[in-house]
């Protein structure tokens, strides 16, 4: 790090910028600059207001009502929220979601190792590997689910075929209550790997080669370099990946919905996530008020966990 210090230390002065902004500020005062700012932020803000703020406020309102399929709300206050934690469907869904998120978090160390390996200088076929790892990200979840359901099929699946050669008798992976959630989480890891690797690779490329060279001179092997150099310097990227990853996995829906195959899958109680439950109550049972309460409860949980992560980052994320 000492080596890199001089490069960033020199203050950069852009005289052109000074000249361009200074007279404008003097000429029209601070009010105009606020107006300009608003003008540029306006379109984004309008979109945000229409597609995020209004729906959020509206959802809060719906959650305080008993609302059926054709509107006609009746105000019930906090009744829907009171029901939440007494409802074992919601409580098990919450537990399933946390278990899923914890398992999917394992994808981050895996992605870090793969990214570090892909960053090896002089690696042949790097583009091919990157494409292969990114492929699941650009594949439709419905297709991913279809293929993995075939792989996991208890009678005809390729996984059980392979295990059969090893003398292991596989199970019916996505319909066995003991294996279903883990089996689906593995698909979740696999699907998220590509995005994580891309972010981490970008982070790796911003680490100066000099750091690795210094480690080499000091006699560190590849494992030691990975642990003492790569991971600490990559920690800002790892942090971003884990924040995005946790938010994404707490909101998991599509892969669970699709991997279950149909509504009659007996492992539904062991696998359904919070958003799946939200969907079931809202669009399945036409109980929009309660569904809205589930959605908002999840939003609060996501906010809280993200806040905790930002607080914890002080302890482990190294910013230069």
């Amino acid at each position, binding site marked *: 790090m000492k080596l890199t210090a001089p490069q960033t230390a020199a203050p950069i002065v852009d005289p052109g910028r000074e000249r361009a902004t200074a007279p404008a500020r003097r000429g029209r005062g601070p009010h105009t600059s606020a107006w300009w700012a608003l003008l540029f932020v306006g379109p984004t803000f309008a979109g945000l207001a229409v597609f995020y703020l209004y729906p959020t406020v509206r959802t809060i309102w719906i959650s305080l009502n008993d609302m059926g399929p054709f509107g006609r709300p009746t105000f019930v206050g906090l009744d829907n929220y009171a029901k939440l934690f007494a409802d074992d469907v919601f409580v098990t869904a919450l537990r399933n979601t946390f278990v899923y998120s914890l398992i999917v978090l394992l994808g981050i160390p895996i992605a870090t190792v793969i990214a570090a390996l892909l960053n090896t200088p002089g690696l042949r076929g790097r583009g091919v590997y990157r494409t292969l790892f990114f492929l699941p990200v650009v594949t439709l979840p419905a297709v991913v689910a279809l293929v993995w359901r075939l792989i996991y099929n208890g009678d005809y699946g390729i996984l059980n075929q392979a295990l059969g050669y090893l003398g292991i008798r596989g199970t019916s992976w996505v319909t066995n209550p003991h294996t279903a959630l883990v089996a689906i989480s593995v698909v979740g890891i696999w699907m998220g790997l590509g995005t994580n690797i891309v972010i981490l690779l970008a982070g790796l490329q911003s680490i100066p080669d000099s750091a690795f060279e210094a480690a080499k001179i000091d006699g560190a092997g590849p494992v030691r370099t990975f642990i003492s150099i790569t991971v600490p310097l990559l920690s800002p990227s790892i942090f971003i990946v884990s924040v995005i990853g946790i938010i994404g996995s707490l909101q998991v829906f599509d892969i669970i919905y699709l991997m279950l195959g149909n509504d009659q899958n*007996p492992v539904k109680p062991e696998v359904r996530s919070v958003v799946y439950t939200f969907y079931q109550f809202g669009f399945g049972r036409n109980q929009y008020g309660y569904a809205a309460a589930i959605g908002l409860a999840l939003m609060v949980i996501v906010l809280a966990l993200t806040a905790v992560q930002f607080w914890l980052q002080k302890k482990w994320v190294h910013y230069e």
Partner: protein
Amino acid sequence: MKQRGLTRIHRAVAAGATIVAFAFTGCSTSGTSSSVNAGDGLNEQATLSYTIWDAAQKPAMQKIVDEFTKIHPNITINIDVVGTKDYWTKMQTAVSAGSGPDVFWMNGPNFALYASNGTLAPLDSSLVDTSNYPKALVDLYSLDGKLYGAPKDFDTIGVFYNKRLFQEAGVPLPTAGWTWDDFKADVAKLTNKSAGVYGIASAPYGQMTFYNTIYQAGGEVINAAHDQIGYGSPQAAEGVGIWADFIKNGQSPTIQQMTDTWPGDSFGSGKVAMFWDGSWGAAGYAKSAEGKNIDVAPLPMGPHGNQSVIHGLANVANAQSKHLAAAKAFAAFASGKEAADIMAATGTVIPAFNGTQEAWVKAIPGMNLQIFLDEATSAIPYPISKNTSAWNAIESDIIPQILSGKVSVEAGLADLAAKAQAELDKEK
């Protein structure tokens, strides 16, 4: 705003025209029946939207539309196909926003929800003569004595079976009048573990399996007034128990296996000897690997008969339609005799209009499809209530737990009855 002003003018013009027309007929003729046409709204310019969910049926629907517009040249009808996955979500949003289609397809589980919320226009006897349709379908689409849906097509359940597997096991083929005992004995004899053949598949879908056996045992899924769930009765336990036993005895694939592999596929490839499925399945089985060996028998006699559950779609008119008279007329026409003949010729569905189904029966010569029509006369309407999907969701949570043996039939059904009843009570 502009739109609204325009339509108001339109309406005023139409009303004026009608008055003029009445005055005219009053002067020139002495009250013949031709004056009816002037006031029924079918002569004004109108563009209707017709929303359906099956793209495969669009050509037939287009033909029906063409026939209708030939008679009423002032009316234009556009067909929209919305996939089944989004159909009800979109329909709910559109109908509550007042922008729903003028005419659309309706199914049993959603019918009472729409009808009880005043979103459907009643179709009186001058438009739809109910004697032309199976009674159970008319009942399915009636609420408080009024008909809201013109029955379009229907499906009943039969026992598809594999003749080759019957012959190999030395079991005589099922015949009309066979009983539950015959059926159970056949299942036992046809199950051949070493060959990987199951006698039956206890599919966890009520309409295909346990709804039928519950009624055959003398029970009911929901009572006629749609306010009492029937799952708590011993008859219901008998009706569900027969299917749970098949799995427990190893005579049916497990619920896990059936989730992994659709049991209809196992039947079509000769791994399952008998399969209860709807008339909609016939064409697919005829084309399957075992196609030439597959035939179909009527449901076996239970303690209280061999009733099948009947379900079918209906054409409904949106009560908010700007051209209500035209919408109602088209909904009725699209389920009428000419429309039924068009549907029968395409062979995709059984038309609901009595006496038009022959073409469908003859479409697959190797199968005794007549049984599906015969069953319609004694059939039970598909069980529904105002918010069917609320208790259906509980059903699809608990039934798989019962069939997988995780809970006993009695305990599971008691739980199901209590929770489903609680959902049903919310409808009041």
